[in-house]
């Protein structure tokens, strides 16, 4: 059951009921005022005409006869110059001009038991005498009562509709909030693929659910990253750590051991552990998108030139030839340090795996709205079946793992490409490996 006192819908309904009730009350009051004004102005015109008619008759007829037509709710009286009643209704007073007499005991002569009502009266002079005519204002009063009845029933309708609306809204909101609660509880319980349900209506709750889902997505990605790093660290760091331990144990226990060379080997092991660990952390952070906030305009062409220039001598030493065809002025939004490292990894890969005499080619050009970068070599390449696999952590194609490297180079390239919203593809260079990265130009 919904806790009514805490339900936003009920609060809203109550607020809207008050607002509507007030607005309707105002509308009725205004109507009453206008209608009454109209009635009174018609009565005045009517009274003035009657007074004129009686006045003309008074000139030829006696007051009693002149007033005889005024019956029912109409009252009239004639006073002499001293204000003494000559004929007609005695309750009227000899005053000239318009006046409303509020609910006075003004009984009309023929029906003295009739209810009191207010009377609009008009007095004028006819020669020396004063003529006063009046009429009961029951029409104006009845109109007021009718409007009041209308107001009360409107309020009743508004209250009814408000309650029903509030109940409906409260029920619907409650149902959606309950679903959200359930989804979040299940997320908190570890089902990190859970997302908030969307109705597709695009309303406020949907928009909020979308925003919350984006957060859930990000949290899930971060958790996944942490899990991945932990697993990877356990996977690939245990081996060198074990080796390091064995070396130290050997140095400690065997008296004839060449301690100095063992120590330098141990130091190299430690170095390797740190390198792997750094690479893992870096990949994890890149994958988590930690650095996107620092993105800046980067001259891709310049980064490529710097990297190929830096590795030029190394390529020559490896007996390889490099060709570069980098179009100038290619700009992307990104992180220069990481882009440089990613390109360096690609070039290092070529140096390491393409072999002596290989041709390495680095090119970059604008293609429509994208900047396409290709690093290719004429080495042995990667079999098609393994191309997706080499982008994963620690995947190295030689089973022996004899060549140096952490098996994280291409993983980082992939992570950096993803972070920049770029697509990375590996293909055959006939022969060799061709790595293509397509960025969106800035």
């Amino acid at each position: 059951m919904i806790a009514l006192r805490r339900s936003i819908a009920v609060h809203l309904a109550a607020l809207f009921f008050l607002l509507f009730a007030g607005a309707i009350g105002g509308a009725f009051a205004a109507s009453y005022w206008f209608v009454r004004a109209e009635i009174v102005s018609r009565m005045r015109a009517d009274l003035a005409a009657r007074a004129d008619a009686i006045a003309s008759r008074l000139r030829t007829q006696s007051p009693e006869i002149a007033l005889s037509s005024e019956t029912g709710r109409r009252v009239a009286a004639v006073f002499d110059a001293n204000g003494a009643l000559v004929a007609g209704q005695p309750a009227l007073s000899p005053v000239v001009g318009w006046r409303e007499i509020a609910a006075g005991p003004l009984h009309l002569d023929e029906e003295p038991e009739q209810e009191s009502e207010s009377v609009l009266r008009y007095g004028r002079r006819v020669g020396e005498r004063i003529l006063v005519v009046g009429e009961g204002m029951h029409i104006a009063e009845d109109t007021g009562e009718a409007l009041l009845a209308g107001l009360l029933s409107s309020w009743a309708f508004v209250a009814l509709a408000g309650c029903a609306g509030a109940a409906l809204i409260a029920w619907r909101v409650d149902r959606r909030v309950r679903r959200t609660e359930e989804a979040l509880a299940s997320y908190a319980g570890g089902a990190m693929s859970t997302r908030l349900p969307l109705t597709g209506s695009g309303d406020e709750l949907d928009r909020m659910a979308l925003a919350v889902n984006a957060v859930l997505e990000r949290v899930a990605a971060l958790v996944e990253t942490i899990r991945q790093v932990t697993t990877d660290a356990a996977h690939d760091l245990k081996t060198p750590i074990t080796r390091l331990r064995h070396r130290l144990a050997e140095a400690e226990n065997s008296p004839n051991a060449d301690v100095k060379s063992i120590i330098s080997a141990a130091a190299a092991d430690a170095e390797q552990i740190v390198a792997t660990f750094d690479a893992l952390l870096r990949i994890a952070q890149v994958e988590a998108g930690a650095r996107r906030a620092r993105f800046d305009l980067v001259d891709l062409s310049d980064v490529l030139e710097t990297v190929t220039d830096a590795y030029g001598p190394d390529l020559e030493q490896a007996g390889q030839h490099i060709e570069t065809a980098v179009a100038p002025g290619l700009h992307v939004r990104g992180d220069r340090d990481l882009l440089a490292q990613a390109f360096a990894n690609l070039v290092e890969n070529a140096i390491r795996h393409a072999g002596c005499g290989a041709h390495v080619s680095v090119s970059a050009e604008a293609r429509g709205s994208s900047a396409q970068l290709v690093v290719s070599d004429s080495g042995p390449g990667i079999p098609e079946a393994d191309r997706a696999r080499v982008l994963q952590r620690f995947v190295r194609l030689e089973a022996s793992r004899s060549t140096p490297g952490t098996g994280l180079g291409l993983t980082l390239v992939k992570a950096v490409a993803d972070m920049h919203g770029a697509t990375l593809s590996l293909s055959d260079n006939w022969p060799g490996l061709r790595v293509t990265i397509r960025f969106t130009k800035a």
Partner: protein
Amino acid sequence: MKVLLIEDDEPTAAYIANGLRQAGHEVDHSADGRDGLVLATTCTYDAAVVDRMVPGLDGLAVVRTLRSIGAKLPILLLTALGGIDDRVEGLEAGADDYLGKPFAFSELMARLNALARRPPITTGATTLQVGDLIMDLVARTVRRAGQPISLQPREFKLLEVLMRNRGRMMTRTMLLERVWDFRFDPKTSIVETHVSRLRAKVDRPFEAPLIHTERGMGYILEAPPDMGGVPRR
């Protein structure tokens, strides 16, 4: 020089302090950020080495506080965090340089030297001279013993960095940062091959070598004593 060391890990602190003392420097050590800050504000130091994660007050806050009260001493920030943003955060806080753990002492010493004795005049100078080697920064030409030497742009930059830091060891990572703007560790010998190319042009045709290798640590450019250089130990 007098160095303030703020580092809570005892073995690391001892390693750094011993190294600095052996190199003839004076070291004050604090294992706590707050105490370190008090030391930094009450005594005068030529440089500070601050670990990023220390109890009391964390390293970044120490650096920020020191900068906010106008302390100008060079600060080298150490960190065990491998984060890719840590360097930027450290520099933004006001540190002058940044070194990730674990590190070789030679690296720390080289960076500290580069910071502490930063020559103030080099920015305005248009020529650099070490012994008979003269670099014209405006015309971008290099001469040694009057003979012009033709250098590639990157070789020029490498030589410029070495000349600006004459007599000081420049480690491999420092050269990677300053010459190529690389903030990662290449798996190949970029620095070595470029230095050997530079040597082939700058040193080999001449009698006395100017570029010296400190094995496993880095490179020093220095004129021989008879050409005005400081004798090397």
